[in-house]
Each structure stands twice: as C-alpha cells, then as structure tokens.
C-alpha cells in the first residue's frame, strides 16, 4: 500500500482552515472558478462605484473631431461615432448594469419571498391563485415579458428595473414556496405551534430564516440574467434611454453600422457584458455548492 502523506491530505480536506479568513482562503482554493467569479464581481462593483475617478473622459461629452478613433494610448478602447471615449462609457455603463442588476433582483426577490411565503403557508385557494398566475408569467420568456413591460411603462431606469423584477417574482416565489412547504412539516415548526405561537410569527421567525440560503443562491444566479436582460432591452431600444451609456445600447448603436469599420465599438461592450454575466454565474454556482446543506457536514 502506497505511503500516505497525512498532512497533505488533511490540508486538502481543509483541516485547520478555521476562523474567517483562513476558511475563506480554503474555500477560494477549493472553488477556484467561484473565487474568480467573485473577483470579477468585486472589480465590476468597484468600477461602478468609482466610475468618476476611473473614467478618463466624460462619457457624454461629444468630440466630433475624434470620432471613431482607434484604440490608442489616449483612448484605450477608441471612441464612438460621436467621439465619446468608449473606455469611459463602459466604466459608467457598469453603474447602470449594477443598478439594474441589484435593483431588480432585490425588488423581485423581496416580492417573491412575500408571495412564496404566504402562498406556501396559507395553501388553499390563495396558493392556487398564486400558482396559476406564476404559471402564466413563467410561460413567457423573461425577455419577452420585460419587453412588453418596458413598452408599456416607457423607457427609464426605474421602469427597466421594475420590468425586469416582475418576471423574477414567480421564480423566487416558487423556490420559497417549496421550501416553506417542506419547513412547515418540520417538528420545530410543530413545536412552535404547540407553544401557541401565531402563524405569522412562525412564518417570520422559523420558516423565513431557513429559506435564506436557497434565496441567496437563487438571487446570485439571477443577477447575471438580469444584467443580460437589461443589455438586451437596451439593445432593442427599450432599455435605458439616451444618452446614458448602457452596454446594450452601446452595442446596438454600433453593431450594424460599424462592426466592420470600427470593431472596437462592438468588441469592448460585448466583453463587458459577457464578463459581468460570466462572473456572477461562476460565483453563483460556487455559492450553491457551498451553501447546499447536503454538502455541509
């Protein structure tokens, strides 16, 4: 039998990785892709927060003299047809993506939690109505639904957030409802009933906190698709209105006309969108692995 290096095996299993930082470092080593995703998300968030500092030009200033400049030391990613600096526009675009991503996910998740919890808890006809409504909502693709919403509400940042949040509600509500149904049968919920606790209090104190882990996993996973939906809406001209630099709009403005003559106008926003979505998805997957109770000891 081959000799076994106990120390190495233990280190691989994460022994000694106790305490906040050491544990985090160990998890990062085990989930390399997830850590990469997290780094991308952090960079993305920092870019959005410090956009004013990082951007070398004002993203809205038109400079016809330097229109369609190639990437250079001055304009790292070139300029667009109005001579606006693409690098600065992408950096400011991160703000919009972040605002839409976080805004719509939070909004959708909050309403989804309330709906899912009530639906799972009350059951009966309330549940039935919620279920059928969410069936209808889920039968339509996220994008189509958001398209209809923005078309009805008109393009503006808050409207885009609402339009993307609404299709999220049934997805979140489903997960929370399923968890609520399972938790309702748990003995600790029965114990709470037998001490005379009210149903609302049981729902908030015993059921809700135990649905948080799947909720966080779901929300992270959805963050990527909300960013993508915003880009798609803006690409179709129904998202964030001019002149604000949304990645999707940047693509749509340049795709048809300049893809051959000024490919940087297409490449860089495309990379930005892919990277942001990729990062959140990687992180979301790792988070699911870590928080999945079946994998926790």
């Amino acid at each position: 039998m081959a000799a076994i290096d106990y120390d190495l095996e233990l280190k691989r299993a994460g022994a000694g990785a106790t305490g906040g930082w050491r544990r985090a470092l160990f998890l990062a080593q085990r989930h390399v892709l997830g850590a990469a995703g997290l780094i991308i998300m952090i960079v993305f968030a920092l870019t959005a927060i410090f956009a004013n500092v990082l951007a070398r030009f004002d993203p809205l200033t038109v400079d016809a003299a330097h229109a369609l400049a190639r990437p250079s030391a001055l304009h790292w990613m070139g300029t667009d047809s109005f001579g606006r600096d693409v690098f600065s526009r992408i950096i400011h675009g991160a703000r919009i993506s972040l605002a839409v991503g976080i805004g719509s996910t939070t909004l959708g998740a909050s309403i989804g939690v309330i709906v899912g919890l009530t639906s799972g808890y009350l059951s009966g006809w309330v549940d039935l109505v919620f279920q059928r409504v969410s069936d209808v909502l889920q039968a339509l693709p996220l994008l189509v639904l958001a398209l209809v919403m923005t078309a009805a509400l008109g393009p503006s940042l808050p409207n885009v957030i609402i339009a993307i949040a609404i299709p999220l509600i049934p997805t979140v509500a489903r997960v929370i409802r399923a968890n609520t149904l399972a938790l309702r049968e748990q003995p600790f919920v029965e114990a709470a009933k037998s001490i005379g606790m009210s149903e609302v209090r049981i729902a908030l104190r015993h059921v809700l906190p135990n649905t948080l882990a799947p909720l966080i996993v779901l929300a992270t996973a959805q963050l990527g698709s909300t960013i993508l939906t915003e880009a798609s809406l803006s690409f179709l001209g129904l998202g964030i209105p001019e002149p604000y630099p949304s990645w999707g709009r940047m693509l749509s403005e340049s795709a048809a006309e300049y893809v051959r003559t000024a490919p940087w106008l297409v490449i860089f926003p495309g990379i930005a969108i892919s990277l942001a979505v990729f990062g959140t998805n990687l992180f979301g997957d790792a988070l699911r692995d870590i928080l999945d109770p079946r994998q926790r000891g």
Partner: protein
Amino acid sequence: MSEALLEVTDLMKHYPVRAGVLRRQVGTVHAVDGVSFSLRTGETLGLVGESGCGKSTVARSVLRLVEPTSGQIRLDGEDITHLSKTELRPHRRSMQIVFQDPFASLNPRMTAGDIVGEPLAVHGLASGKALEARVAKLFEQVGLRPDQMGNFPHQFSGGQRQRICIARALALEPRLIVCDEPVSALDVSIQAQVINLLIDLQRQHGFSYLFIAHDLAVVAHISHRVAVMYLGRIVEIADKDELFRNPRHPYTQALLASVPIANPHAKRLTPLVDGDVPSPVNPPSGCAFHTRCRFAMERCKTERPALVEAANGHQVACLLNEGTGRSA
C-alpha cells in the same frame, strides 16, 4: 393520582385518499379509529404499537396539531376538541410535546437559549434579564450548562439536543407532556440518560406523560400504564406490571415475544406472527388483527371486538377474552 387530567373519548382521524386529475376520493386512511383512554395527574401512559398504528396521530390530535375527525378531548375537564386557535392558546401552556428527531425539532438558526426561552416570550411570561435567568435555570434542570445558551443546535450531540427539547417543553410548566418516541433516535447509552431525566423531572414536578414508543422495553421502564395499539385502535390497556406479566391480546403477546432479549441462553427467535401490518387504507373487517392472528376464528373476520374489562383495570379487545370480564 386521582382525577383524570386528560380524557380522550372515541377519537377518530380519517384522511381521505385522493387520486386522479379531479382529486376524487378513492379511499380513507383510518389513522385513528375510535380510541379512548384517560390519563391521571402525575401518571405516565405508554402508547405502543408498530409504525402506522396511529400512535403519533393520537399524540398530535391530543395537542390539536391535527384536527380530529370526531371524538372528544377533555383537558382538566374542559372540552378542547373544538376550541378556536385563540381559545386554545391558554390551554397550550398546560400541554407540551417532545418529538422523536432531536435534529429536526430545533430551528437550526436559533441559539439554544432562544429556543428554550421562546415559549416564555410568546406567552409574555418573562423578558430581558428575567427571561435569561429562567432559561439558565431550565438548562440546569435538564443537565445542560447555562454557558451553552449561546450555542447553536448543531454544536450539541443528539442527547443534548433532546435535553434542549425537554427544557423547551418544561418552560411553560405544563401539566401534560406528550413524548413522541423521544429516545428512539438516540444511542443506547444516551437513551438511558434521557429516560432517567424524564423520570426525575416527573418526580419533581408531578406532570403527566403520554409516552409514545415502538420499543416495549423503553415503555416498560417509564410507564405506569400501557396501551397497545394496532391499526388505529387500542387492543389492550392495563397497568404496566399486569400487562407484561399477563398479556391477554394475541398481538401484545406476539409483540412481547418478538423483542430480542439480551441473553444468549434465552434464544427464542420464533416469530409469533407472520406477514405484515395490513394497510390502514382499507383495514381488515372485524378484528383488524385477524389476518395475522394465530387464534383467529371465523367470528373474528366479521365481528369487531370492543375494548372490555377482562380483569381489574385490564381491558382487552379480543373475542377470546369474552366471558373473562365483567362487562362482556
């Protein structure tokens, strides 16, 4: 030990079995099918039976955690069968439950101290420092250290978790504690600790236990009286010593004979019953046990024997015991 604290009369719980797209009812599960018993103050009644005999449903019905289909539950003389949730609330203080699975019966996201203190907080009996002091005292009563109050359930062993459950049940100073298989998930050496704790607590506080278990030996150690259930009905009920010394129902006899004895010289693994417990969806007619009974007669298939007194306080539901008792 005089007046009845709990009186259950002809309790029934039927669940509809639905099938198909239209959710039409295709059958009925007779989970509990006419159960009557009473429990005196300071007494322990053991309720034994195999899985699916309805013993847990009886426990949950008594606490009104499930709504009985019919029958009556009287606590301290008051009928609580049909009380609304609000009317029931003050009564909840006098009856508590300890569950089987000490892992699932504690909210994993609350500290042990918060779990034990919760009943007091819900009923507004204590708060702040006073609550903390009460919880610390409860911890000591069940053999836990008060400095463990800040720990989460996963930091405790199975036996310790069951102690937390017991402390939570004690918090409201109940008069009745329903124990639903409280030790069957525990290791043998820990089982003994918990049984002893339950016995000690009863001696100190004088409450009653309705003790549900499938393990006859455990029931034998903790109970004053024992009721044996089979397919939703009580088939025999007697004082503990009388029941173990002189089991009258063929099912009780089979149950006793099936328990493996920890003595190699008493080898006797000869199963007294064949086959499996029939489904409670459409239980056998007459005496439900006739399909597995060694003594089954033609009459057993059609006549349902009533629970009648066969000897002093010893009630049996079996046609064989007809004539031995006074009321038959």
